[in-house]
């Protein structure tokens, strides 16, 4: 079992087995068996990952299956195999994916109990784990792309899980297509890498880059920007973030697992994985940082006015992912991954708790019709509180440590870094505000629910909540320094921070900002509930509530023109005029020729005979004229005529 050939492929393949069993037979199996299959395989996978963690901890060699990996695509000089590699970065990702993933599976058993497509749901969920673990285990870009597209597929299937709902189908389609735009960038990057390095293996590319005679900056920047396009698609960053809010159409545990904790962080993982490339291109890094900061700020503003509990969380996710991009952009990859991990804990918790609320209210998602749930759902309330404190960045909750590390890293990056830090800080203020707004609207005040009796969720759902709450509280205690040191073999040592006083000051400032956010939320929502919030600042609110009309802009600038061109330019001019028209033209010419020739067809037998005789005479003259006139034989006559 120590053989990596056996042990690494099993991590993704076990959930795949679960997918096959449930996908092929699930509809005929009893529910309990379906749940058992769905839970056992991720748990086994998690056990393997835990074992790998122990191996790393014990200082054993990192398992790698690269050169002896089975070949996948071999053509000419190109050789791409199913290479898998496990290092510290992958390990962190795997722990999050399989650990949080398993908890969410567990939660889903309760949450999805009454749904008709129970088996289908778990099959998709296991499929997701298969692709996601493949993504992080991949030792080359193409296999990573497999996972990359695969999680997109799983996401598509799960968003559209409620197949009766048109909006769910639309959202799934939108997610997949927008992700495809990102994948297009990824694919181009792969081609560029293949063209310039002749290989797609991470280790070999890193070796190429380390060589002194490297590539020119322009190509590297181009590759990085293409990769970045892929990352913005998957991680819902500007300009491709538009799919994530709609993706909330899926079941809530799916939002927790895919659209908060794991899949959407794939872009961050990818940038961290390819940091050797990004490090060589300051331009690309700058773009990453700016996109991250802008997305963080932008999404936070929108999150402040959403009324759907899941949409608040969705924009919050986009915003937090922006933080991670910001961290990558300033070269603090380990901080990005650190935040990725803590975010996975508290955002999964937030979603699951929100799911518990929705479950308790029989599907109600509008915060304006919640309130006062503190009494009815105490466990949900307390765990949610932990998560809210964590995401807002209160000491000593997990979010404090990771967000602090990111802001500190930005602060030390010169003037631009200061600007980014400022944006980050304002975003932190808004984060704290909208999270406490959610908290107040949902749990505090009087109940605004109509004639529904809220109830606490079953224990199978609450157990994961409590575990995640514990992680949200304690997840950051490991500290940025130790975490960074752990990841150092992969991401390199981060730039040395400033002195301790500045650090401490920044931390205090961050906590103060978070407290300010809470205070503002308390002053608006703490007493009066939802009434007073709509009065002031009407016009900015309208902009925010309509999400800056970005969706409409995309439709007007991209979707409609494509449809218009397809329908009118291609459909009418191309198909009707050119393709059909040319055929009609030929038919017309043939028809005219026939019209002219039919005049010779008198139908009279004797005229035909005359033509026959005349033609025979002409042919004979032609054949025999040479002989008669002494020019030569038949062949000569022919060749003379042809010439």
């Amino acid at each position, binding site marked *: 079992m120590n053989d990596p050939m056996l042990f690494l492929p099993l991590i993704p393949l076990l959930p795949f087995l679960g997918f096959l069993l449930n996908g092929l037979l699930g509809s005929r199996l009893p529910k309990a068996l379906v749940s058992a299959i769905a839970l056992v395989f991720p748990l086994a996978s998690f056990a393997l990952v835990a074992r790998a963690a122990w191996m790393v901890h014990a200082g054993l060699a990192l398992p790698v299956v690269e050169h002896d990996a089975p070949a996948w695509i071999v053509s000419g000089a190109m050789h791409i195999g199913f290479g898998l590699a496990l290092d510290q970065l992958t390990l962190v990702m795997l722990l999050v994916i399989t650990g949080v993933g398993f908890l969410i599976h567990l939660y889903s058993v309760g949450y999805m109990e009454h749904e008709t497509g129970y088996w289908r749901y778990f099959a998709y969920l296991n499929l997701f784990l298969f692709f996601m673990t493949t993504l992080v285990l991949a030792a080359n870009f193409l296999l990573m792309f497999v996972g990359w597209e695969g999680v997109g597929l799983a996401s598509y299937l799960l968003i559209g899980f409620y197949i009766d709902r048109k909006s769910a189908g639309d959202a799934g389609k939108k997610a997949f297509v927008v992700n495809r735009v990102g994948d297009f960038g990824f694919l181009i990057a792969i081609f560029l890498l293949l063209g310039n390095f002749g290989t797609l293996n991470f280790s070999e590319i890193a070796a190429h880059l380390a060589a002194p005679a490297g590539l020119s900056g322009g190509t590297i920047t181009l590759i990085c920007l293409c990769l970045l396009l892929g990352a913005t698609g998957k991680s819902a960053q500007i300009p491709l973030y538009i799919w994530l809010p709609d993706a909330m159409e899926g079941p809530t545990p799916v939002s927790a697992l895919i659209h908060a904790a794991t899949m959407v962080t794939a872009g961050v993982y990818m940038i961290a994985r390819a940091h050797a490339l990004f490090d060589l291109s300051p331009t690309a890094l700058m773009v990453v940082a700016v996109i991250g900061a802008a997305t963080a700020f932008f999404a936070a503003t929108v999150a402040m006015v959403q009324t759907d509990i899941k949409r608040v969380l969705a924009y919050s996710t986009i915003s937090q992912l922006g933080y991670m991009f910001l961290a990558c952009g300033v070269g603090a990859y380990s901080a990005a991954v650190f935040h990725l991990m803590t975010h996975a804990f508290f955002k999964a918790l937030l979603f699951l708790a929100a799911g518990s609320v929705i479950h308790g209210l029989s599907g109600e998602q509008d915060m304006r019709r919640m309130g006062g749930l503190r009494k009815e759902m105490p466990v949900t309330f307390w765990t949610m509180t932990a998560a809210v404190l964590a995401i807002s960045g209160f000491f000593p909750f997990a979010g404090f440590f990771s967000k602090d590390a990111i802001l500190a890293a930005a602060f030390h990056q010169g003037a631009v870094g200061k600007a980014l830090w400022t944006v980050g800080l304002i975003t932190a203020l808004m984060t704290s505000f909208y999270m406490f707004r959610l908290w107040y609207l949902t749990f505090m005040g009087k109940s605004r629910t109509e004639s529904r009796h809220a109830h606490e969720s079953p224990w199978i759902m609450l157990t994961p909540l409590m575990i995640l709450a514990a992680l949200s509280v304690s997840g950051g205690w490991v500290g940025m320094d130790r975490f960074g040191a752990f990841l150092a073999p992969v991401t390199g040592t981060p730039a040395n921070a400033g002195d301790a006083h500045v650090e401490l000051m920044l931390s205090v400032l961050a906590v103060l900002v978070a407290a300010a956010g809470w205070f503002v939320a308390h002053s608006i929502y703490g007493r009066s509930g939802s009434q007073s919030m709509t009065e002031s600042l009407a016009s900015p609110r309208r902009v925010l509530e309509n999400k800056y009309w970005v969706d409409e802009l995309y439709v007007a600038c991209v979707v409609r023109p494509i449809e218009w061109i397809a329908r009118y330019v291609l459909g009418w001019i191309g198909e009707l005029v050119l393709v059909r028209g040319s055929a009609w033209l030929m038919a017309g010419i043939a028809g005219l020729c026939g019209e002219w020739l039919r005049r010779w067809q*008198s*139908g*009279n*037998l*004797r005229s035909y005979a005359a033509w026959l*005789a005349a033609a025979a005479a002409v042919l004979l003259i032609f054949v025999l004229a040479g002989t008669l006139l002494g020019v030569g034989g038949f062949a000569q006559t022919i060749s003379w005529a042809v010439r």
Partner: protein
Amino acid sequence: MNTTVPAEWYLILSAALFTLGVVGFLIKRSLISIFMSIELMLNAVNLSFVTFAHEWHAVKGQIFVFFVMMVAAAEAAVGLAIIISIFRARGTLTVDQIDLMKL
């Protein structure tokens, strides 16, 4: 008395008969007479076959005439059957009135 005749005389005769057959095809109005003109042309050609067979001492020339006769017999059978059915359908054999082929 053993006079000789040049071979080309036979051939000239064959050509003349053939041309008469062509002219017959053109001027006759009855379908059946036109058919006879065709037979005339076939016979003219047969004559030249036999002449050449004699000229080159090749038996196969005569064999060819034999085949032409057989084909002519088949043709006559079918052709006359067609003529009969045309007459049944149209009531006439005048070619100028049989112009259904005209578009």
